[in-house]
């Protein structure tokens, strides 16, 4: 049971590590790292379920009848591309956040936003 579902255990552990980083860390880059680990765990899940016991690579050849399932691999290629796009977009957002907030720590950004809101409302009330 435990050995037979080895791939699932790897996937679940990776997934939890990824999600934990996203939730627990305040550094925006670390959050993206966590997100990437989380996505990668899903990629591994798709790839590992495609393996057929005793099957070879899905290439037509004489004398071979048992193939691994190529479809999940193709699907996950698409998802990998999507993952790259997400990471790239996320990183470029972090660059721009760093430019305007001078920080990539969640707490400091929130604090700056709150302070800005407070001063704005103060000037409004006095006006």
């Amino acid at each position, binding site marked *: 049971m435990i050995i037979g579902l080895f791939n699932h255990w790897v996937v679940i552990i990776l997934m939890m590590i990824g999600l934990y980083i996203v939730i627990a860390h305040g550094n925006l880059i670390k959050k993206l790292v966590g*997100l990437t680990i989380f*996505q990668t765990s899903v990629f591994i899940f798709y790839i590992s379920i495609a393996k057929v016991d005793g099957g070879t690579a899905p290439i037509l050849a004489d004398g071979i009848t048992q193939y691994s399932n190529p479809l*999940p691999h193709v699907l996950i290629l698409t*998802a990998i591309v999507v993952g790259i*796009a997400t990471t790239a977009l996320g990183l470029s*957002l*972090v660059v721009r956040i760093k430019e305007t907030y001078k920080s990539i720590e969640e707490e400091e950004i929130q604090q700056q936003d709150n302070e800005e809101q407070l001063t704005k409302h103060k000037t409004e009330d006095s006006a």
Partner: protein
Amino acid sequence: MITHLPILQVITPLMAAPICLLLNRSQLVWMFSLLASGLAFLISILLLQQVMISGVISYELGGWQAPWGIEYRIDKLNAFLLLIISGISTVVLVAAQTSIEKEIPKDKYTYFYVLYLLSLTGMLGIVATGDAFNVFVFLEISSLSAYALIAMGQKRQALWASYQYLIMGTIGATFILIGIGLMYQMTGTLNMADLSQRLPEVAQTRTVFVSFVFVIVGVCLKLAMFPLHLWLPNAYAYAPSIVTAFFAATATKVAVYLLIRFTFSVFGLSFSFTTIPLQTLFMALGLIGIFIASATAIYQKNVKHIFAYSSIAQIGYMIVGFSLSTVTGLTATLLHMFNHALMKGAIFLALAAVIYRVGNVELNHFRGLGRQMPLTMAAIVIGGLSLIGVPLTVGFVSKWYLLTALVEQGWWPIAVLILLGSMLAVVYVWRIVEVAYFKAPLDENIKVKEAPVSFLIPIWTLVIANIYFGIDTRLSVQVAKGAAQSLFGVSP
């Protein structure tokens, strides 16, 4: 040509996006985007007509037979959603060129339209496709362009809102991906119609159960259902106004569509509502969402925030209708999707006009605008009345159906709660009316004039639609009811 409509629906904006990059002259790009979106709208009308007459359309992509190839499947529900999305997109685009003048740097105009069209493509694709994995791909197309569009907002908070949305949205989409993977593992198919036939055989397994939960949680993240709504208010408030108008009217509807499609069609009604207590759960979350979001809306100082929270509350109504799992309840949800798109489209476009003239949408800057921008403010008031559910507006129609559905099941207390929730909407709409009509304008806003015609035309198109569909409900009710009945397998 007519047989290829389902793919043309998606591919028109998709192909138009790169062409925009080649044109690269802002006025020209705007006209071209408008043309592409208008074409998509025309196609959706043709599709709806065809579906109403001859039933479900199935289109095999590249001639590969389903379930091996990708199938585009248009039934009444899909056609209805396609109509809402492409219609709102077209109307909103009319005002786009004027609005982004004040909000986006000139060198980014072309990219704005490219992203807008890609986002439109994503949403249309999610709705048109009959393939579960295709849903994920289109979901990411629309989401990725949405993150970039939101980050284009003027204030630096837009970047932070976009980043938060990116994290939450990606987790949501990946959850859906896990769910689809588990489904594939159990059935070996990705075609939705095929899945719905094969899943019952393995319905008792834990894998299918887990896949269901992953899909539901993922969709609810995208849906901004309470308590997974935290990304929405800032994303809507800081995005460029045109983007807010487009997304507020369409994006969450697409997620509601996915929820309905997965629970009713793919997993099947009996599975969805018996394996986990979906009815109690969604009913409770929907109601809590209505009250908490409406109450939060009352205390906001930024008008865009007020209506963003109100959007979360309106999603609550859709969820309550959905959770009833009766034909009338689902009809109410579908009607509310259509109606909410009309009201929020009108309101957020009017807010875009206010930003164009006043420069921001802080509540205290609304002082005296009732006299300075009478037509724009009147649009917000009618939209607000529609949100409350006053008779002769579309809001009344969907609330009426929702109450009928609740009373049908004998759930009087819930019906009373729904009415109380609408009272909260009165409060936050009144706050805006009070400031706009009964206070003297701020000194800096003395010279503010009525919004330009390029705003008034789309705003009032939507406002008139708000009233028209509130009086003549034949079209919307007929389609929504037909869609709901076919989801329940009742022949109309």
